[in-house]
């Protein structure tokens, strides 16, 4: 029973990490209809930046916020410099462009920071809480992770729902033509969407870095599982990203714990297919009928 509890808690904390990568992917998909394979590389770079700041200043929180800020800038930059150039073309080209960016970023990170992974400090203790005399697999730092992801999700939710910019972004995502008629500069909103998405991604990076360390390839699995989570939840739904991440995190924790770690990726495949067979556009996207 205590094992089940441990696996569940482990599932929740890894699930929240997946959720935050999924969130980043969903934001970009909603804004520009592109699956951003470079997300893993972008958050890797911002995490390296954060680590450099932390090592220089000794302040975790400064590094934390620098990561988020550099994510914002990086996302906007990528959209302006690269994505603009492939947006109008065949949809697969954008995918290839983000893949190429991922390779480029991993190469650059390897050249600058070397392949050797580094330690990234957690802001809070990683010693698990004690419940009923049993030290569980859930630490103050895990709690921080959950709170931070939910906080950013809520923050984004608030931004979307409560602010003018959010309203403009949603209008641009749902109906770009109508948004333009109402004076929304849709191009800027796309850039801002990429910036926000990269920020959500960089959050995932700093949150997960203490547990997977910082290296050019250390975040690769994160992208795969984050994308899987986003697809499970439905690529148009931020809420779906959170729920998808949690579902995936929990299921994979149980698969790894009860069936063996070899089956984790296969488990992800099975879960994904099961969900998509029931709902071909994910849990939280309503399937639209095709037009004749």
């Amino acid at each position, binding site marked *: 029973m205590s094992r089940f509890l441990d696996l569940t808690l482990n599932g929740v904390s890894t699930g929240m990490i997946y959720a935050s990568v999924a969130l980043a992917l969903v934001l970009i998909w909603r804004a520009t209809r592109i699956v951003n394979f470079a997300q893993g590389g972008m958050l890797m770079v911002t995490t390296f930046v954060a680590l450099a700041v932390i090592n220089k200043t000794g302040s975790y929180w400064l590094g934390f916020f620098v990561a988020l800020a550099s994510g914002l800038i990086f996302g906007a930059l990528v959209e302006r410099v690269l994505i603009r150039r*492939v947006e109008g073309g065949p949809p697969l080209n954008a995918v290839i462009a983000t893949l190429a960016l991922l390779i480029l970023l991993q*190469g650059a990170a390897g*050249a600058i920071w070397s392949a050797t992974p580094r330690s990234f400090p957690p802001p809070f203790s990683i010693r698990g809480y004690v419940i009923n005399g049993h030290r569980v697999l859930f630490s103050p730092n895990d709690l921080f992770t959950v709170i931070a992801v939910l906080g950013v999700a809520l923050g984004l939710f608030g931004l979307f729902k409560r602010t003018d910019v959010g309203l403009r972004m949603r209008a641009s995502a749902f109906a770009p033509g109508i948004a333009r008629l109402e004076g929304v500069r849709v191009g800027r909103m796309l850039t801002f969407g990429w910036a926000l998405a990269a920020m959500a991604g960089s959050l995932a990076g700093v949150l997960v870095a203490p547990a997977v360390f910082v290296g050019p390839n250390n975040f690769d699995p994160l992208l795969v599982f984050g994308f899987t989570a986003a697809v499970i939840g439905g690529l148009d739904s931020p809420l779906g990203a959170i729920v998808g991440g949690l579902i995936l995190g929990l299921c994979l924790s149980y698969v790894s714990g009860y069936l063996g770690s070899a089956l984790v990726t296969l488990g992800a495949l099975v879960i994904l297919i099961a969900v998509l067979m029931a709902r*071909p556009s994910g849990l939280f996207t309503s399937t639209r009928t095709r037009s004749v």
Partner: protein
Amino acid sequence: MSVGAKPRQPPAQPTAGTGAAPPPWWRRPRLPQQTLARSILLALVFGVVLYIVSELFGPFNDLRLATGAYYFAALAGLTIVTGLNGQISLGHGALMMVGAYTTALLIGREGWALAPALVASALTTGAVGALLGGVAARLRGPYLAGATLAFAVGLPALAYQYPNTFGGANGLEINPPTPPSALGANFPLERWQAWIACFGALIVYVLLANLLHGRSGRAFRAVRDDEVAAQIAGLNVGRTQVAAFVVSAACAGLGGGLLAMVDSLAAPGAFTLTLSLALITGVVVGGLGSLAGAVWGAIVLVMLPVWTGDIAGAFSLPTQIQSNLPLILYGLILIGVIVAVPEGIQGALRAGASAAERRLGGRGHKLASENLTNAAQKEG
């Protein structure tokens, strides 16, 4: 308030009959009308070309030729499903893995000869493709991408889960094929492997060309262009999509089998997500939707790492930078190509060819050049 132009309809009647001037001699090779005869002839031409190329090459370039040939088989498969049928697949690396393991198991464990083992690999992978295609036919766009990506990541787990059959992380090794003694004792193994791989690729090319220019290829492309119109025209969209996946998977399976033969192995480390992503990159950069594009894609996949390595080798930089420079160049070149020639290499060549044709052709060949443009589009 002013009133616009009065209705005046230009006669839009098309000219009756074919009307096209006969194409100039240089673009009408006199070839047999029967597909079968033409296929054989083409295969012979290609075969001779490849034979000459392989003779010119040293053993290592022969190996590159063989590598290019198995990449081509997989890329041609991906061309069918993604280029012609419009279904994105990020899972063809895993399909190659199915083919490679089938070949390795049949040769290594069951003692089969190479040829039947390769055929069985194509068939087995085709069957797996039917399953995958059944799922894929229900999914669209990024959801299909996600499902196939999960397939690419998930399938290698089977190798770890059943180490007794699949050899775990180490995978399986097989003996390379032995060149027949008739070729002489010093006949290089790599050339023999190149011949086999090219023969396989040639079969894929000819069969797919037959398929694409016949009913099935039309159906694939029609479903890609407009699913509703295809249904109205009597095509079973779901079945066509599954069929495309089956054909595509069979090609990838053969490609995987050839990989197993060329590299003498089947191991999970050779079939990671990176391979699947490299394949989709290859078809897009080569030119989506034509077999010629798949040829270019194969050349890119084989040669680009070589070129980036050579360029990087020309510098003398600190180890850390030197090691990563090829990756950086690879990424930069890919981005450059995607931005500069969004239609891929084959697309750019066609555009260039028809532009040159127009300039050279003059007025007498106006219709002919029009034909070329159309033909070029048709190939896509």
